[in-house]
Structure formats: C-alpha cells, structure tokens
C-alpha cells in the first residue's frame, strides 16, 4: 500500500472505532403486518394483471413515440443544437457550481463559491443572454450569498459579484432560485434551520438586484385542525416582463412536527397521513410581500393533475409547462418507499382553465424507493424563451438528466459519472 492508502485505512479505522457498538441506538422493529384477508389475494392478482397490461401498453406507446429510456447517443441536428443555450450552469451534490457545454457536457468554468456543508447544493438560475445568478458560500464565509455572473461566448465566467440585499442569515438555507428575464429581480426560496434542524417550511424572498430591496412571501395557510400547514416551494418562474412570478407551492394540511410537504406525496402528521396540496400561484412581487394567496391561483392539483412536481409559467403567463406524475403510487406507507406515482409527463396546460395543451415528454420512472419529489429529485428547467427544457430525475434505478428534443431526451451528462446535479439553469 502507498502511504496515502496507509493513512486512509488508519484514519477510517479510527473513525469507525469512535462509534462503540454499545452506544448505538437500538434498532426498533416495526410491528408485524396484519395478514391480509384471504379474499384479497385473488383480487390483488386480478388487479395486478390489469395494471401490468396497462403498463405494457404504455411502454409500447412510449417506445413507439420515441420517448422512452435513452438507449444511446441521440443524433441532434446542428440547427437544433444551435437553437438551445450553448452553456448551462449546474449545482451538484458535491457542492460544486459549474458551467458546462450543452453540446458536450464538459465543464468550461467552475465558480469559486460552493454549496453549504454538509453536501449543500447551492442553487443557480439563468436570466437569459448569458446572465446567471447563483446562491452559495464564498471561501472563508459561513453564510449563503446571492451572486450574479456572466458566461462568455467561450463558456468562461466573468463579473462574479455579490447581489445587493442577497446575503442570507446564518440560519437560512437557499432551496431554489428563479431569475426574472434580464435579471432585475431574483426570487429565492429558503428554509430556516433551528438547532440544527430545518423548519420544514419555506419562505420566499424577491430581491431587486439593483437596489437590494426585498419582499417576503409565505405559504402561510392553516391546515386541518387549525395547525399550521408545512409549506414547501417546488418551483418558481417569471413571466417574460419580469413582473409576475409563478410559484408552485406544496402544503401539508395536517402537518405534524416532522412533516415535509415538499418531499412526500403524503404528509405525515399526528393524525396519520394526508395528501399534500399543490397549487400554482401567480404573484406580483412589486406589490409588496405577504401571503401567496394574495395572488392569482393558476392551477391546483386535481384528479387530472394528481401530482404536480414542477410547473413553470410561459413568458406570456398563459401556459404552464408542468412535470406531472400520474399512475399507481408505488408503496403504501407515508415515509416508506416509493411513494410517488411513477408515470412522469412534461405537459403544457392552459391557465387558469387547466385545459391540457399537449405532452412534451413522457417517461415511466420505474421502480423507485425514493420518497422525495422535491426539486432536488425532479427538476424541470426552461430557458428564457420557455421553448427548451432540461429535465432531471434522480430517483429510482433509472436516473436521467438531459434536454428535450422532439419528445426525446438528449443526455447532458454521463449518468454513471461522479456528480449529482441538483439544479441546472440555462
């Protein structure tokens, strides 16, 4: 072994030895499940045949439409590649914030700011024409700050500067960013950490990047039993005039102290489980802060759109491009495995009528034991024209990351690579 290997083995052994077996928290076995009534078995078998038949049909349809799992490099005409942004910025699980080439996925620049520890993602957003914003921690700093930077035609970063009014407090952690076209305003969602634990509820700050003026927005509605609902921001997007902000918020109506509205299709609280509520609100940040319900309700989850994971507004404010999950919910216990529907579609929806306009992409997510559907796990990013889309799904056995081209996914990075993109912006 080399000296490095020796030192590593020694340090790992020491670190492991610092966890004495006798001090471990005892494992708690769940109560044995109740045997199912005998009559349920044939019914379940019959139901599974129906479901399987449906899945086979769906799979054939997906394969036929060319929207299935990418089976290799997808030929993309040069003209199509020229139409999409040349570079995109990415914040990954290893705390890096980088700029990459859309065509090759190669890193062209790395920002000297990082996501916060431990394994914080940072966040990035694009304002168009090479202007980007990123939230991260500068060297020798403990708190997150909003920065702006430009990406040159060569993919290099210039002019990385702090945004006035963009410093967060030590307890605030950025969860998401959205920049208005041109970059005059940036919306930032954050959660607050108390005694090392996140509050579970997000708030929104909209920052005027010229003056540093802020408005603060809250989900703020009360849930069942008069308890405060836990509120999470899943996605944010601006209209083309930079005056209106669409916010996909997820509330957990019957929330208890450990509920996380943004990470489960079910909310877990003292009273058991409840379905989370997802709504898209359109607000005018210039009119001051307050409750999101001051704005216009564009879309609410419904039988037609049972699980809204992401929803981004078009420049004219009339169309939402949404990531919608449908189909059977895999798993049965809130907080357990695989409790999100496993059929994903990227679809466009007229608002506020809710009329479906078409499907851009569909994919079966496959067997998953992931409980999350927050932006870290399912991401939809549009360019400033909202004509081009990046999709990230980091769940299940078939994670993927790419941009959409004629109903197909053009991979952005090698999924067997070493980084975990959490946020992407272009």
């Amino acid at each position, binding site marked *: 072994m*080399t*000296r*490095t*290997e020796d*030192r*590593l*083995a*020694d*340090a*790992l052994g*020491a*670190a*492991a*030895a*610092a966890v004495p*077996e006798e001090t*471990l*928290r005892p494992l*708690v*076995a*769940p109560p*044995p*499940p109740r*045997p*199912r009534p005998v009559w349920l078995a044939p019914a379940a078998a019959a139901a599974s045949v129906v479901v399987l038949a449906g899945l086979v049909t769906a799979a054939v349809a997906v394969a036929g439409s060319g929207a299935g799992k990418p089976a290799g490099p997808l030929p993309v005409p040069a003209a199509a590649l020229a139409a999409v942004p040349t570079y995109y910025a990415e914040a990954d*699980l290893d705390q890096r914030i980088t700029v990459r080439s859309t065509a090759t996925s190669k890193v062209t620049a790395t920002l000297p700011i990082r996501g916060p*520890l*431990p*394994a*914080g*993602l940072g966040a990035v957003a694009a304002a168009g024409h090479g202007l980007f914003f990123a939230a991260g921690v500068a060297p020798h700093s403990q708190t997150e700050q909003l920065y702006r930077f430009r990406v040159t035609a060569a993919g290099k970063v210039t002019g990385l500067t702090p945004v006035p009014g963009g410093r967060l407090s030590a307890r605030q952690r950025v969860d998401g960013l959205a920049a208005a076209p041109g970059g005059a305003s940036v919306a930032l969602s954050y*959660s*607050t*950490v108390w005694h090392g*634990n*996140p509050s579970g509820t997000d708030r929104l700050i909209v920052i005027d990047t010229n003056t540093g003026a802020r408005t603060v927005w809250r989900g703020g509605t009360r849930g069942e039993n008069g308890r405060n609902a836990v509120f999470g921001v899943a996605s944010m997007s601006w209209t083309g005039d930079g005056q209106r902000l669409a916010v996909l918020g997820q509330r957990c109506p019957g929330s208890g102290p450990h509920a*996380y509205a943004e*990470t489960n299709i079910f909310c877990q609280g003292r009273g058991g489980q409840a379905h989370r509520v997802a709504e898209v609100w359109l607000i005018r940040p210039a009119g001051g802060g307050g409750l999101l319900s001051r704005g216009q309700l564009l879309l609410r989850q419904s039988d037609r759109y049972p699980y809204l994971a992401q929803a981004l507004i078009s420049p004219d404010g009339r169309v939402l491009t949404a990531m919608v999950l449908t189909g059977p919910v895999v798993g*049965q*216990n809130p907080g357990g*495995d*695989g409790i999100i529907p496993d059929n994903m579609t990227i679809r466009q929806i007229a608002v506020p009528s809710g009329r479906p306009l078409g499907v851009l992409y569909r994919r079966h997510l496959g*067997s998953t*034991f*992931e409980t*999350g559907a927050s*932006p*870290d*796990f399912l991401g939809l990013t549009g360019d400033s024209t909202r004509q081009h889309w990046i999709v990230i799904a*980091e*769940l299940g*056995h078939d*994670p993927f*990351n790419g941009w959409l081209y004629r109903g197909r996914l053009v991979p952005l*990075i090698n999924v*067997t690579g*070493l*980084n*975990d993109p*959490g946020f992407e912006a272009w």
Partner: protein
Amino acid sequence: MKDMSYPLPAAGPVPAASSRHAVTLLFRERHAELVRLAVLLLGSRPAAEDVVQDVFTRLCTRDYLAVGGNPLAYVRTAVVNGCRSALRRTSAAGRAGERQNLLAPVAAGSAEDEVLLAEDRRQVIAALQALPARRREVLVLRYWLGLTDTEIAEVLGISRATVSSTAARALAVLARHLGEDA
C-alpha cells in the same frame, strides 16, 4: 449520481415470519458495521443511525428472503444508497448541521504523538469528506470494509473497471490534498 433508492425486493403481501427473523439476525450481527459505514459516508452519527434504522424497517416489511444472492452485499447497498438519499434530503430540507468530528481521542504513546496522530487523521478524514460522493464510497468500501473491487462493484452497481478507475482518481486527489504522492 444516482443510486438514490433502496434496492429492496418487491413488496410482498406479508413477509414471512422466517424472512423477518432472517433480517433481524443479520442486523443484530451487522448493526455496528452498517452504522459505521453510514457514519463514514455521511459524517454524522445521528443521520447514520437513522439510515440504518430506515433500511431495517423497510426490510422487515418486505420479503427479504426473495433477495437471493448475497444478502449482506444487498444490505450494504441499501445503506450506501440510503446515505446518498439522506444527503439529498438534507440538502433539500435545509442542509442542517455540520459534519461532526468523527475521530475519538487516540492513545499513541506520548501526548505529543497523540496530538500529531489525531491531527493527521483529521486531515485525512477531511480530505475524504471533500471528495465527490461516489469516490468517497469506493474508498470507504475498499479501505475500511476491505472489499475487493468486484465486491464494491456489486454494492455500488457499477462495473469493476469503474471501481478501479474511480479509486485511482480518488487516491490521486487524496494524495494531492495530503501533500504526497499516491
């Protein structure tokens, strides 16, 4: 990227009592090892214990015996993946807390030796924690659990060649961090 899931067997109607018993036995035997593995990957003992408890709970409600193959490798995979999911959830939920000091006081002879050794180990662990997740996993599995590259490949669901190249890159970065040749 991307392991994000517990690769557990398909949910059976009700796990057989024998399956549940087998799970309990395995965890009784390997509890400390699994928690230590998670601690080395996560840098946090409470989070590590949560991950292992979670995996245990899930396995108890599934037909574990349907796993076949190598149950221990299977459980290790679940813990490694659980750690990555935990990292992601932590990020989403606020990236709370800080990495803990993983090292207990050392006994290395003189007080000066102890200080030097402790400092050396801290440097190594800090360099390890700074590595990308996959590289960290490969190194921990190889140099702490002592798995072969083939076994690591099985746990991580990647090829043996990828394990080898990942380990080589990780060691090179680690050596650079530590100011020596790999």
